[in-house]
């Protein structure tokens, strides 16, 4: 029973990381690449850590696995947010199939972000 769970966890984790790395190659623009990579790798590493904690019954392995998982969950979204923000501000183009871009024209000169659509730019696009 334990072996079956271990095999399942290892397989799911490895497959998630494999799909993330295929995703880096196949996705058409930067934001989609980021989107695919961040989550799938978190899920994959989480499953592999859970499997490692199951294989070794010592307490310190389990505590280390829990600590790594916790810090991974804590830091990955922040890193993704910062990379995404910097790439949008520095003007990396979106994919041509992008349906909607509501962030367009919302930054002012100092890169402060507005929350309402007070800009004429936005209103003009919404009317059209």
């Amino acid at each position, binding site marked *: 029973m334990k072996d079956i769970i271990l095999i399942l966890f290892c397989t799911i984790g490895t*497959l*998630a990381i494999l*799909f993330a790395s*295929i*995703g880096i190659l*196949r*996705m*058409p*623009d930067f*934001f*989609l690449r*980021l*989107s*695919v990579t*961040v*989550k*799938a790798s*978190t*899920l994959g590493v989480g499953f592999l850590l859970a499997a490692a904690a199951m294989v070794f019954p010592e*307490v310190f392995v*389990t505590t280390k696995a829990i600590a790594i998982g916790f810090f991974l*969950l*804590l830091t*990955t*979204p922040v890193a*993704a*947010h910062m990379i*995404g*923000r910097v790439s*949008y501000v520095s003007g990396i183009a*979106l*994919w041509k*199939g*992008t*349906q*909607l*871009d*509501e*962030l*367009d024209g*919302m930054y002012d000169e100092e890169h*402060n*972000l*507005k*929350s309402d659509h007070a800009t004429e730019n936005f209103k003009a696009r919404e009317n059209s």
Partner: protein
Amino acid sequence: MIKQFLMNLLLAFIWVALTGALYYSNFLFGFLIGFAILWVMNRAEEDKRYFTRVPKTIYLIFYFLYEMIKANIQVAYDVITPKYFFKPGIVRYPMSARTDLEINLLSTVISLTPGTLILDISEDKKTLYIHVMYLKDKRSFIKQMKNGIERRLLEILR
């Protein structure tokens, strides 16, 4: 709230000390027993929020794991098949979360769900800009987020 949580932890440690087996399963079992004891003893108390929050937190964790695995399968299918099914877009999402802790937890959860990625938060902390991979309709997406993750998260935190 905090007092009951600390009491619950203390009861769990007492259970571990009495049984003499320091395993996670044993600690969890002690925590559950302590939860039941506290629940029985605090029937007459006014502040019963702790006893609704713990089941809701556990439910939220499992709901989040389910959503994460479901969306991961969708993304994985899209990655390995040659045709692109996604319709990406950046959505302006007005959030109900107000304090820093609520915003932090909400954006972490949104960022970890596959298909959605936080791009930025406005300066007045009222809106999130989310990059969505499968955007069918803007309104239905916002409604789904509001009724799903955000409502469940705020029920626990408030």
